[in-house]
Every structure is written in C-alpha cells, then in structure tokens.
C-alpha cells in the first residue's frame, strides 16, 4: 500500500530546503537526497512534504518544552492527510510525547536505517524512526527504509554475522555489502514486564552530557561563512562567528554548545563525558535477553515517565516501540518481535 509520508526538516531532499528547524539553515538547500527519501520513492511511497521540527531536534533535552513535531503530527494525522512522519528522535522526546497523545513511535536498532542525507545531531544516537498513528503502518514503512547502505559508514551488518558492526569504507575499496535483517520466528514473543529503573534520573543526565557534547561538535560547522545564516555587521572573523551563531541558534542549541564545550574540555572530560560514556557501557552490558524477547514498561497514567525507556533504548541502540500505554524494547535487530506484538495488540 502507498502511504503519504512527511519528512522532518533534517532529512534532505535534493534541491529542497533542509533547515533542521534552525534559523541557521533557513536558506540551506540540500545538495543531495537522503537514502530514506530514495528508498521511500523506490518503495512506492508518497513523500507529501516537510514536517516542522524543533531546532536540531534538541527540544526536551534540558526541559519539558513543547514538541514541535508532535503538533505537526497531530494536525497531519487527524485530518487523515498523512500516515506517517520520518524523524530522528535521538532524545526520546518525540516517542514520549507520541505515547501521551495516543500516537506511536518506532525507534529502529541503531545502524539499521541509513543516515546518509540526515543532518547530524548526535551521531552515536542519530537514528531515523517512524512516527505514525497505527503501528502496523509504521512497521511497513520501516521495512522499506531499513537496510544496509554503503554510504553510511556505521551501519549494522546482518544479524547472522556474529554480531559486531563492520566498518564501511569509502569507494576506494568498495567495502563489503551487507544487508541488515531481522530475526524472524513464528512464535509470539515472550514479554517481560519492566519496573522503573532505580537510576532513571541518571539516564537523563547521561543523555544530556553525551548529546550536548556531540551536538556541540556537529553544529560547529555552522560558522556564518560557507553556508547558512551569516550576521550582517561584523568587524572581524571572530565577530562574524559569534554574531552569526548568537543570532541564529536558539536557546537549546546555545545550551548544547556551552555544555558540550564544558564536558569535553580538558578540565571536565573525565568527570563528565568519559564518565557518561562508561555508564552508558554499563547500562548496555546490563541488558540480558535470557528467557524473553521484549521488555514492556507500562507508563503511569499521566505518561510523564514514558521518556525513561525511550532514553534507555537510545543509549543502548536497541529498537523500541512507544504507544499510549507502554514502551516496548527488544534486542538489537529484533524489530520483528516488536511488530508481532504491535499487530497482535491492534487486532
């Protein structure tokens, strides 16, 4: 079936503006088309336009500011104009808000959907997912956009390859082509119910530290010189940098640049960035998939805790599905289990 799909403003389509929700890129026209845009077209889907997003998708990282993309989604879906929005929800904010608003968000395994043509925010968590009304539709779309792409150097190889990712080399060598596939079993997945983790607040802090650090690096290319916004009046280079960035970046981005520079600085690296990385590893290694396929966390009535397992899945690079009542998380590459549960729930 052909669905009508919106792309958030950080997913590039050649010749069309790609702002990443920022004044900095208000006049930036994409030089290429994202891999997912090509896949959608090849898969017979209809790209219906752009969906407005918060600046570099960073809202919700430091506070509970409203989620721009969700407002877009509610409008688009309620009028039945569109079926899904593709976006990069590295903070988990979109997933959590989707659950609260009765929508659903599918976050795929890290490295299964090509990031070629996605304006980078936080490379270790950047992952294009599907925001939609009905999970089964989302999984259909995910099947179209997922798959190995040699142009993204950090993709997941096939699941039966003994785990571990393979580095993608550039065309000088034509690195081996692999296709990511998901484990398929006929049996219904076994679900284990998860409790609120003891250190949920730490998840959030780790995300803040890592996201700020990587964002600060990824947005340092926007300097007012080559492309994007440039301040009008300046007397020297430093003032051009400072004014352009001051005038074009919003509060969340400024905060990211400042916190990022701090946590990566020689004085704080070990205390913040390195510690966050180590804790992330501990959390990753603490997950054990013995005897069950899917973790289910049931949200509180107000859904304020929906973000916790969304963050957990992003820190660990695991696939997750956020719906109204709960968040499901599965092992890497096991989107199939999530889709089986979702389809069973729908029926």
């Amino acid at each position, binding site marked *: 079936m052909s669905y009508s799909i919106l792309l958030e403003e950080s997913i*590039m389509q050649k010749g069309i503006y*790609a702002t*990443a929700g920022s004044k900095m890129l208000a006049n930036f026209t*994409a*030089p*290429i088309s*994202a891999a997912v845009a090509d896949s959608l077209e090849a898969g017979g889907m209809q790209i219906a336009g752009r969906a407005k997003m918060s600046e570099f998708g960073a809202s919700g990282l430091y506070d509970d500011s409203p989620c721009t993309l969700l407002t877009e989604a509610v409008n688009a879906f309620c009028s039945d104009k569109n079926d899904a929005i593709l976006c990069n929800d590295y903070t988990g904010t979109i997933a959590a808000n989707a659950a609260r608003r009765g929508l659903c968000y599918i976050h795929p395994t890290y490295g299964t959907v090509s*990031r*070629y*043509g*996605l*304006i*980078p925010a936080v*490379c*270790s968590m950047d992952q294009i997912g599907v925001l939609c009304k009905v999970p089964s539709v989302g999984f259909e779309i995910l099947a179209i956009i997922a798959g190995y792409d*040699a*142009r*993204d*150097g*950090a993709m997941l190889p096939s699941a039966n390859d003994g785990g571990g*990712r*393979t*580095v*993608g*080399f*550039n*065309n*000088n*060598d034509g*690195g081996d082509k692999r296709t990511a596939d998901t484990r398929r079993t006929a049996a219904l997945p076994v679900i284990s119910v998860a409790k609120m983790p003891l250190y949920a607040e730490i998840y959030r802090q780790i995300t803040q530290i890592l996201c700020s*650090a*990587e964002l*600060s*690096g*990824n*947005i*340092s*290319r926007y*300097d007012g*010189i*080559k*492309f994007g916004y440039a301040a009008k009046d300046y007397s020297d*280079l430093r003032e051009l*940098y400072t004014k352009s960035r001051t005038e074009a970046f919003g509060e969340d981005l400024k905060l990211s640049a400042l916190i990022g*520079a701090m946590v*990566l*600085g*020689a004085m704080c*690296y070990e205390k913040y*960035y390195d510690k966050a*990385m180590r804790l992330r590893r501990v959390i990753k290694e603490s997950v054990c998939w013995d005897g069950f396929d899917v973790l289910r966390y049931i949200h509180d009535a107000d859904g304020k805790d929906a973000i916790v397992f969304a963050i957990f899945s992003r820190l660990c690079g695991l696939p997750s599905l956020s719906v109204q009542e709960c968040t499901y998380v599965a092992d890497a590459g096991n989107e199939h289990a999530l889709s089986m549960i979702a389809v069973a729930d729908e029926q």
Partner: protein
Amino acid sequence: MKYEVVMGLEVHVELSTQSKLFCSCSAKFGAEANENVCPACAGMPGMPALVNKNAVSLGIAAGILTNSDISEVITFDKKNYFYPDLPTGYQITQWFAPICKNGWIDIEAVGGGGADDTIPTKRITLKQIHIEEDAGKLVHEPRTRSTLVDFNRTSVPLIEIVSNPDFNTSGEVVAYLEKLRLLLTFAGVSDCKMQEGSMRCDINISVREKGCKKLGTRTEIKNMNSLKAIARAIEYESQRHIDALETGSEELVVETRRWDDTLGMTFAMREKEQAEDYRYFPNPEILPIRIDKAWIEDVRATLPEPAHEKYERLTKTLGLPEHDSRLISESQNLSRIFDAVTKIVNKPKDVSNWIIGELLAVSSGAGVEGDEIDINVSDFAKIIMLVDEGKINRAVGKKVLAQVFENKVNPEEYIKDNSLAMVSDTGTLESAIAAVLKENDKTVAEYKNGSQKVFGFLVGQIMKKTGGKADPRMVNELLKKMIET
C-alpha cells in the same frame, strides 16, 4: 660546549592516495582552487564520513618501515577548533588509539667520525604515528585585503610521525628527515615534496646544561617545510635559548613560534594561536577498525626493498661503486629498471654503467628526470646484450637507446633498417683505413715524427668513414699495423 640541545619532531606527511580520507574526491595536488571538493569535504551536513582503506594501508606501511608496533584496533576522534580552513569545525584524527606506536629509525650520526669506514648510527625512537585529515588552505589577497579558502587539501590523508626527544643537533634532524623521506617515497607512502607541503614538520626544542637530567623550557617551531630553513631555525632557536640561559636577557616560556626565513629569526605566535583546548572525543560516525595480521602481511608484500637495504646489496654484494649505487637505490624507478634489466642481462655492473652513463644522459637531454623515465626494459636489455656480443658498438648502442627512449622503436629492427650493425670485416675496415691514411698524409707524417695525439684524430676519421659502425677495437689494431708499415 656547556649546553645540550634536546629536540623532538612532529612530521606531517601527506599520504599518496588517489582520494581523500573520508570522501571520494581526488587528493591530487595542483588542481584549480576548489576543484576537488564535494559536499562532504566542504563540511556540509548529512554526509557520513567513510574511511579510505588505502590510507589505512599506507599507515600500516609507514609502521612497517619505521619498525613500529601496529595497533590491532584503531579509532578516529574529533579535534575541535574554529578556523576558516576547517569546514566542519573539527578535524578527524587519532587521539586515543593511533595506528602505530614505539617505532624507531637509525640515522647516520653526522660528524660522529667512527673508526675505520663504518659510519656510526644513532637510533631515533618514535612515540607514535597517527592518521588524520589535512585542513584547507587560506589564500591571502593583499590587493583586496581579503582571504579566500581553497578546500582542495581539506580531508587529504596525512600521517603525523611523532618522535621522542632524541635529537641533539640540526644535522641529526636533517639526516632523520632525509631518511624518512627516502623510506616513505621509496615505498610509495608519500611523495614527501616539502615545497608542495606534502612533508612539513614541527620542532620541539629545549636547551639544558650538559649532564642535567631535567629538560629545559620547551618551545615549538611550527610548520617548517625546507631542510635548509630547518637547520637555520634550529641554530637560531637553540642560540636564543642559550643566550637566555647565560645572560638572562629574556625569560624563556613554553610557546609556539614561527620561523621567518627572510629575517632568519623565530617569533612567538599570537596568543590565540597558542595551545588550545581541543576537546577531543571519539567520533561515533566511524566504527573501530580492526587491523589483522593478514592485512599487515598484505601490505608488507607490496613494499619494495627498502632503499638502504638496496644500497647495501648494490655496494656489498654486487660490488657497484657507491655513487652509482646511491643514485640507483634512491630512485624507486631506477631501482625497478636496474632490477628488471639485470634479471635479463645478468651483468649488474654493465647495467649500472648503462643506466648512469647512457640512460640518464639520454633522459636528461629530453628533460625527463630519473623518477619519470619510462623505458621498455627488455629493449634496454637487448641493446646492452648486442653491444656486449659485439653486434653493435657502444656509440651506436647509445644512439639506439635514444631511439628506444624517445620513439619506442624495436632496437633490432632499427639497427637493421639503418644498417647500424658493427663493421668488423677486416677487408672493409682495411680499405677505409687506407683511404683515410691517403687523405691525411700530413697527419700521418706528424704521427711518424712522434706525435701520439693525432692517432685519436685518425681513428675518428675512420669511424666517420664507416658511419660510426666500425668495431673500435679492430680499428685501433689495424690502424696501428697499417700506419707503421
């Protein structure tokens, strides 16, 4: 001397890859400004970095050549700083897990003066070698008082070879750089052209009293790209340190300095250019790369015989003169020609003479350097054999070589078509000699009166008469016999 100079080097060498380190743009030097640029190396968002595998292979080669430990797993990191020549605002480098560690290179210790003929060597130890991307180039336009950026060099792969503070004299530094250049150009790791910036170095320098364990205050002279300037800069800077220590004329501070070649002095760089906090962190866009034994062995198999080993072989085993051996072993192309021709002719000394005496003369006449000579080695070998077998004389051989070099002719056909085969038929030579003697009766008389030097003139006349094809040995013998009777 009361003082000891202690130096360490950071040498940047551009790798000879076809394409850049993280995209497919050409890495060739000398293109029009911003010709070799794509959205990725121009720093536009949305283009994931893809590692050039060949650059890693050349990094491995550098490790093998410098006797380094090659890391099993390497990673890439981001080094953050704002500068207009850096389009992404960060440089991708190897901060946490460099490709090579603990290497060493032996250099000839200049002025050491060892016993007998042995030249004493000094071992320079290396801390590490890492791979990183180059930055773009700023072009200052004084007329319009503006600065333009050329991104051709952006993301061209480099290795930085970091030595320990093992140098004490400028001679050692120069010898080390020459040795590095020899090793790396020979193996095709880099062309190491200092004037084009594909080899440049930073020198860390400090001075202490002899016998003192603690190092003195260290300054760094950045971006040196000429051996001559390096030697001068070291002399100047070490003297500045010594003066400061002796007279207290100025207080030495840890700082980065720039060499002004015209003034012959170093100057402290502006505060802003001094050590920054680069906020290094692992680049999550590039996954760790595993270098297994097979990869290292593959690279090793492609490496040619190192120049110094070749030199040893030519001088010691094959007994060639030192000068000739050096000329051949220092050029990978001449080495290749030498090896290939020797394989056919199996007379190394002859082959070396032909290369040094004839081939280089022919090529330089055509304005072609040794490294660029392109000659069919079996044709070259054929010429040497024909001369050796007495089928043509050496002068004709050289003529044919020029034809093979310039017009790629088949030597045997060319000799036949132009009737260049050596004339060694006694009858033909005798009549030619008789004619020459008759035409030059005055000269003959001079000879008979004791003037030996006119003999050569007569030989020349005979050669001329035979179109340069006569066997010179026979001409000598017959002439001697006939002139005396």
